[in-house]
């Protein structure tokens, strides 16, 4: 009847290449990771013949792995909190600023994101190493006598991850705050709220969706990060991802590595769900 129907059916061809690509090389591989985690380990070849739960059982029973999992989660929470504290004022400031510097500051936020991860982490190696810029500056200022150990532990990993992931927090938040009409804050002030109270009661709750989006992004990216912990973590600052890659590449224990990866993914999903439930009360009321 209408001329639109055959058009729409033919139009489906547009999405076929992308669908085929994603199903074949994205969906199916995720099945293979799940299957791999249930395979028996083997010394000859990638995996043994049968299926088993042993990979999970031994991982969950291993206190070293549990500790690593805990540390990784804690690292994720720490990095998220730090980026929030650093990023919110920046996002707020830029969203409310009207000047010709706007574009430049936006570039400052964006540029680090586009510079490679390895390069940025390398920058932190230069700063945090024993004879590095940070220690040089601190001893020149007379604050310390012996160099601080800032690398090869979680301190370095946390600082560098906060740097690496800060743009991921700022950008969604920036978009969110820009969408909030600045006049609602003015209105709150006209009703007698101090600047601080106006912010606390009006702007902050309204920017909750941005905080939520940014925080989840940063959390997931920090617990799954490989490059930064591998380069700056040393022996004691190894996270779950580093462990997984070590299993796969160095120890060639693929089934066990697959199980670890899935445990990490499940832990991430649970944490994010928990975070959603906690912040739901605040965001529920928002439009």
């Amino acid at each position: 009847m209408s001329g639109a129907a055959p058009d729409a059916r033919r139009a489906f061809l547009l999405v076929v290449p992308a669908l085929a690509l994603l199903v074949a090389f994205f969906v199916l591989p995720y099945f293979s990771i799940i299957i791999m985690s249930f395979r028996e380990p083997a010394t000859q070849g990638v995996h043994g013949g049968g299926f088993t739960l042993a990979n999970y059982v031994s991982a969950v029973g291993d206190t070293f792995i549990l500790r690593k999992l805990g540390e990784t989660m804690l690292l994720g929470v720490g990095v998220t909190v730090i980026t929030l504290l650093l990023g919110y004022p920046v996002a707020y400031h830029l969203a409310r600023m009207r000047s010709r510097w706007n574009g430049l500051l936006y570039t400052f936020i964006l540029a680090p994101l586009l510079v490679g991860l390895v390069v940025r982490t390398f920058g932190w190696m230069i700063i945090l190493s024993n004879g590095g810029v940070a220690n040089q500056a601190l001893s020149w200022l007379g604050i310390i006598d012996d160099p601080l150990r800032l690398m090869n532990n979680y301190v370095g990993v946390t600082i560098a991850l906060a740097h690496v992931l800060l743009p991921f927090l700022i950008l969604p938040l920036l978009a969110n705050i820009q969408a909030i009409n600045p006049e609602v804050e003015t209105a709150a002030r006209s009703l007698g709220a101090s600047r601080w109270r106006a912010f606390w009661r009006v702007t902050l709750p309204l920017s909750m969706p941005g905080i939520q989006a940014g925080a989840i992004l940063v959390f997931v990216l920090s617990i799954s990060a490989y490059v930064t912990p591998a380069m700056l973590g040393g022996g004691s600052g190894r996270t779950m991802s580093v462990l997984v890659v070590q299993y796969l590449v160095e120890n060639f224990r693929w089934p066990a590595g697959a199980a670890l990866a899935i445990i990490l993914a499940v832990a991430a999903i649970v944490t994010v769900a928990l975070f959603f439930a906690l912040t739901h009360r605040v965001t529920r009321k928002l439009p």
Partner: protein
Amino acid sequence: MSELRLNAVRKRFGNLEVLKAIDLTVANGEFVSLLGPSGCGKTTTLRCIAGFEFPADGQILFDGVDLTQTAPEKRDIGMVFQSYALFPHLTVQENLSFGLEMRNIPEPERKRRIADVLGMVQLVGFEERFPRELSGGQQQRVALARALVIEPSVLLLDEPLANLDAALRDDMRFFIRDLQQRVGITAIYVTHDQSEAIVMSDRIVVMFDGEIAQVGSPKEIHDRPISKRVAEFVGKSNFLKGKVESRRTDGAVMLAAEIGPIHATAPATTSAGDTVECLLRPESMRTGALDGLENQFPARVEDIIFLGNSVSVHLTIGGGHRILALLPADFLAVPGDEVHIGFSAANVWCLP
């Protein structure tokens, strides 16, 4: 140029019946407005004519040819959009050229026609500008020019003036009407602004809830509405209740109204003994010289609002009935004054 016909056109979106059997004929060269409140189906009707929506039922005929299921590009229409929809990546010249290129018109003729039409819309010299470099009114005229340059058989306009400021809107009304008359094109104009429809149209189609309520000349629609709803939509109204005492063949009736006996005009369906409601437009009331007006009443001024070129006056008449009158700005009275008002029988219309 052509005649356009809609035969029992129906359209539904899901469960919502948006158009319920629309019948309409637009004559060659006629300017017809679709007038109605928001959501009544004006845009949908226009989009069915344009071919952007396909009716569930009924026919759309251009000069007797059924084009109901034809794609929009094959219909020979010109359309002016509310947002103007000027191509932002093309200059004025290129925007105008677009439709001509689609019709494979050779370059020299394209040039000539574009120059002609730019002259008509008074935009000579703006050829190389991009739409963003034009004011709202200029963009509006480019949109009009782009629709006219292809010399379509029907011009469709969907609230083209809605985005302009009030003063410009007034100018553009006359500009568009004048242009349409000069070109002699059949035009269908969608608006929810009754004064726009009244000033511009040969005929007005009043629509409510996906149905045509009344079709007629602006004067008919304004002075002889077929229902209270149409009357209220088309302008400010006073309604007087009364009983028909007697009736003459030419439609003149004598009424026993709440405010007293009045002379009125009634449609053929009204007969003596009927209880009716009559429309009395505020602007048809007079003060001062009342010679020749069949109805005259003493009234008390309650309050006066100055409107610039006129005053809006609330009056009580006939023992406590409030009515509204629109009088010349030189009406000098203060609240509490007693005045005489009058109105002719032709201006009291008994709603059928």
